[in-house]
């Protein structure tokens, strides 16, 4: 590492580092973010290191341990450069063969190649895989190029040049103007234009201002921020230093949830390195600008991702939101002007400064020339999970259709089932049905559909998903994660959940839907923060797009998707049942009986609908029938 005290010294160091990158070098890249490690990447690294030593290849082959490479499903994965050969599901035992065959003899090992779930064909190179080549990885793509523990790696791909440029050639106002013109909107929540927020904070009165990075990422199933922090921490840090300079802040915080220990470790390391190089701390690059960074670990409450609760938590108070009639940019952390942005928002900043506004605004929807609200620009990283073939982090241009994400990148629905809905925006987002598959994904279209961008969760559901059950699941999450401060959120969400739970458990009644609607309206209107105000979304969207399913549960007393146990029953098809007795043995409730080689029967009283028999039966004779068995009575609610 080198200490650079001025822009010229930095630039010459950067030139050196850039030149030292050899595009033809033989590098084995191994994805080792949290998901990679969980899948055993550390053992593979060990094996690779040993093999390289054993074959005396230290001078010819190098190993690059990177953060997450986004394709979670095929972890542990390695990519061999310069060809970009991709091996998936690699085990330590495969390593000697990889060395012998691929590294030494340039032969492809077929067995380790990725099989495209759509075509069934094997694919050799990373850029031939639709999951990758249909994305626009302008931010997450860098994860592949760097070892996140090395600041030199980041600098060698152009890192910190945006900071150098900002400090040496740009006035704060010019930077703010640039971010405003870029149309960059917040990637963590409501999609507020970042430049507008910066401008208000810049103009707010006070000698002491804060910039804060929201890395709480509390949405269940979302991990896009983790992917960035673990894969490229310096990009987030650089964005924050630039933002601080533009706003006039000297102190920054990053609030990382405690469940991300690797992200914390890597970010700490990044701060230390940047300080040692003179890119952070006192008198950055000789500009006279001082900036110091602090890391705070969040205790894992979802609500602490909300801006005012996050700041309360940073102050050591309980994580309760407060009314924001006076904005955080004027009175936030310690009552001082504070600018909070999401991890991904910060990571976009260096890119915009380096590539310029025109380049950025070409990506996305709408026109932001005169109005930062006029469209959605740049890319967004989604955590694509659920019933799709390819799950992982996908970075797509704003305006891409849901269909392209689900079918193009995601490879369609697993097991050739039918698509039913996609849930976006985290727990308080909404469910979007198949008729809206051609919806363009941007802030405004998602909101119009009753959902939201949120921080980029995207859960795909197939025909075996019950929409009432889904709404019930999210309301249960929100009920537990509400801070409990205001009445509409604490009591309202709980009662909404109670009603949904009644419906799912077969106690639905006339009037339930009307009461749900009434509660939804009131909670939306009256809740103190956006957790409460958006909590009715899962209910409202499922009611809007899947009203029939609610009616089926309440009036017909059946769960059409076969999920809600109280509203289904199991039977054995007499024709196909061979009477093999496998289900009898597997049933934990001893509910199945029958003579050998004769069709078996299920005792409805004893059946707990666990589904073990379905998994066991080789002849697909166990069927789920929507509706109660005629012998089972409805349980009544006593309100």
């Amino acid at each position, binding site marked *: 590492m080198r200490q650079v005290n001025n822009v010229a010294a930095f630039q010459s160091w950067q030139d050196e580092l850039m030149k030292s990158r050899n595009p033809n070098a033989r590098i084995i890249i191994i994805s080792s973010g949290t998901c990679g490690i969980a899948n055993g990447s550390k053992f593979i690294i060990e094996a690779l290191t040993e093999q390289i030593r054993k074959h005396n290849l230290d001078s010819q082959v190098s190993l690059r341990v990177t953060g997450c490479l986004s394709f979670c499903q095929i972890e542990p994965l390695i990519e061999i450069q310069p060809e970009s050969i991709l091996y998936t599901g690699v085990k330590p035992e495969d390593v000697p063969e990889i060395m012998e065959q691929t590294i030494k003899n340039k032969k492809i090992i077929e067995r380790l190649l990725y099989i495209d779930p759509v075509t069934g064909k094997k694919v050799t190179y990373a850029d031939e895989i639709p999951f990758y080549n249909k994305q626009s990885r302008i931010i997450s793509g860098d994860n592949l190029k760097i070892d996140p523990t090395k600041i030199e790696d980041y600098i060698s791909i152009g890192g910190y040049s945006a900071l150098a440029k900002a400090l040496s050639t740009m006035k704060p106002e010019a930077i703010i103007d640039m971010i405003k013109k870029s149309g960059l909107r917040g990637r963590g929540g409501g999609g507020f234009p970042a430049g507008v927020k910066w401008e208000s904070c810049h103009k707010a009165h006070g*000698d*002491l201002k804060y910039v804060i990075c929201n890395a709480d990422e509390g949405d269940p199933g979302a991990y896009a921020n983790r992917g960035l922090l673990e894969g490229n921490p310096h990009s987030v840090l650089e964005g924050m230093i630039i933002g601080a300079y533009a706003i006039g802040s*000297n*102190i920054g915080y990053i609030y990382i949830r405690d469940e991300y220990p690797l992200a914390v470790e890597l970010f700490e390391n990044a701060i230390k390195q940047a*300080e040692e190089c003179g890119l*952070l*701390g*006192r008198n950055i690059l000789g500009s006279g600008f*001082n*900036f*110091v960074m*602090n890391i705070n670990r969040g205790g894992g*409450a979802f*609500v602490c991702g909300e801006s005012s609760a996050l700041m309360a938590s940073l102050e050591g108070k*309980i*994580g*309760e939101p*407060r*009314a924001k*009639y*006076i904005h955080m940019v004027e009175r936030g952390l*310690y009552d001082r002007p504070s600018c909070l942005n999401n991890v991904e928002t910060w990571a976009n900043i260096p890119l915009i400064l380096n590539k310029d506004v025109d380049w950025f605004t070409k990506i996305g929807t709408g026109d932001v020339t005169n109005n930062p609200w006029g469209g959605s620009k740049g890319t967004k990283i989604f955590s694509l999970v659920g019933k799709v073939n390819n799950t992982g982090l996908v970075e797509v241009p704003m305006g891409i259709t849901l269909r392209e994400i689900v079918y193009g990148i995601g490879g369609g629905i697993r097991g050739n089932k039918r698509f039913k809905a996609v849930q976006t925006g985290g727990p308080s987002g909404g469910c979007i049905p198949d008729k809206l598959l051609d919806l363009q994904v941007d802030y405004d279209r998602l909101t119009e559909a009753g959902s939201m961008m949120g921080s980029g969760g995207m859960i795909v559901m197939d025909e075996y998903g019950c929409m009432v059950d889904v709404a019930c699941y999210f309301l249960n999450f929100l*009920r*537990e*994660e*509400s*801070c*409990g*401060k*205001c*009445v*509409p959120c*604490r*009591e*309202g969400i*709980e*009662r909404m959940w*109670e009603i949904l739970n009644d419906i799912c458990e077969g106690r639905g009644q006339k009037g339930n839907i009307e*009461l749900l609607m*009434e*509660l939804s309206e*009131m909670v939306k*209107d*009256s*809740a*103190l923060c956006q957790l409460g105000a958006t909590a009715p979304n899962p209910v409202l969207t499922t009611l809007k797009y899947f009203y029939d399913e609610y009616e089926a549960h309440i009036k017909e007393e059946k769960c059409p998707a076969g999920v809600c146990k109280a509203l289904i029953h199991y039977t054995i098809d007499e024709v196909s049942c061979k009477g093999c007795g496998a289900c009898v043995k597997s049933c934990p409730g001893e509910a199945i009986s029958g003579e050998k080689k004769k069709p078996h029967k299920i005792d409805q009283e004893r059946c707990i609908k666990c589904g073990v028999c379905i998994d066991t039966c080789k002849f697909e004779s166990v069927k789920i029938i929507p509706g109660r068995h005629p012998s089972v009575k409805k349980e009544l*609610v*006593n*309100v």
Partner: protein
Amino acid sequence: MINLTINGKAVQIERDKTVLDAIRKAGVDVPTLCYHKDLTGYGSCRLCQVEVTQKGRTRLVVSCLYPVAEGLEVKTHTERVEKNRRLLVELLSARSPDSKVLQKMAKEYKIEKPHFRLKSEKCILCGLCVRVCSEILGANAIGFAGRGTSKKIEVPFKEAPEDCLGCGACTYVCPTGAIQMESEARKRWALYLSSGDRECRYSRMGLISHKVCPNAFQCQRCEVDQRLEETLGTHPAFVAKPFSKLQPIRIDQFQIQPNRYYTAAHIWVKPLNGKFRVGVDDFTAKFVGRIDNIKAERAFSNNKPICELVIADRILPMYMPFSGEVVEINRLTRSVPSLSVNDPYQQGWLFSIKADNREQALERLLSPLKATALVKQHSEKLHQRLSKELGITMTDGAGNLVNNIPALLKEEEWNTLTREFFKPMV
């Protein structure tokens, strides 16, 4: 003054008031459960919500927190608001069906039976007790624990809190009678107080001079107690306001924090884990206006400065009245020296130090009261020197001290002045 309308009626009110204040001033009744005029607004019950229109934009806000604004049109009983209020009351009634206040409210909203399964919580989590304990008493003996549906009011670690004065203000503000004061409990808590003294709750609050309880804390039977409460017309805590005594003290343009020691050379000192944390006081902060660099020494004594503050080409050596060594430098002020000026008492602390002789060091420190007197004296002197003798305008239009004193002084003047105010003591 601000002009606004409440249901079409014009109201004039001070700038720093809330819409709820204006509503009350207009004589309009809106229901509240978590509001108390002497406590900060909390906005949890949402009953005081109203529709406000400004610049053609209408929205729903809670009036207890929304600041008044010129030309604001407030509607307190629109259909939408009343519908929301009714459902809120219904939800609360289902939570606490036995509460008298809620029964009354439910009746007003013609709710016969809530649509929800009844619970039997007494506490509605309005937070009044928590706020009175922290904002009025400064005791913080109770707080919220948990979140979501399992949120509740608790004492720290579920043990009798040492900080509880047994004053009973929490029971006084509770709208549902969920917090009850037991004389037994009061007695027990009293024992936890470090003194073990059976001191009367009013003397503990500083409302009357020291008095020992003759009644085993059966306050209802105590004449003094009952008389006080009657004559005050409110809970005595709201009159005594012990917490206000812990607020910063203002002397002209300067502030002194009550909860730490000071030196005559304008450094604050706070004992912390066997060491001392030190920083510059507000007098230093305002005097220098900004700091470009802090040059710290490892060892210091009363004639070897602990550090030098660099302000452009001016240097201000800071002295301690005892000897010791610096064991930790605040990494925030090391990177951002001006933090010591912008936030001298909190984030802008300078060092952790060890005194060579702790007892002696403590003896040489000034109490906040003495520091206040000193700052007063120095403030007047500074005024004398700058305005009268050097002809420098000391304050800006708003009455704040100018923030560039170092730049306004010639080197010689700087040296004389700094020696006068920050001189090493023997």
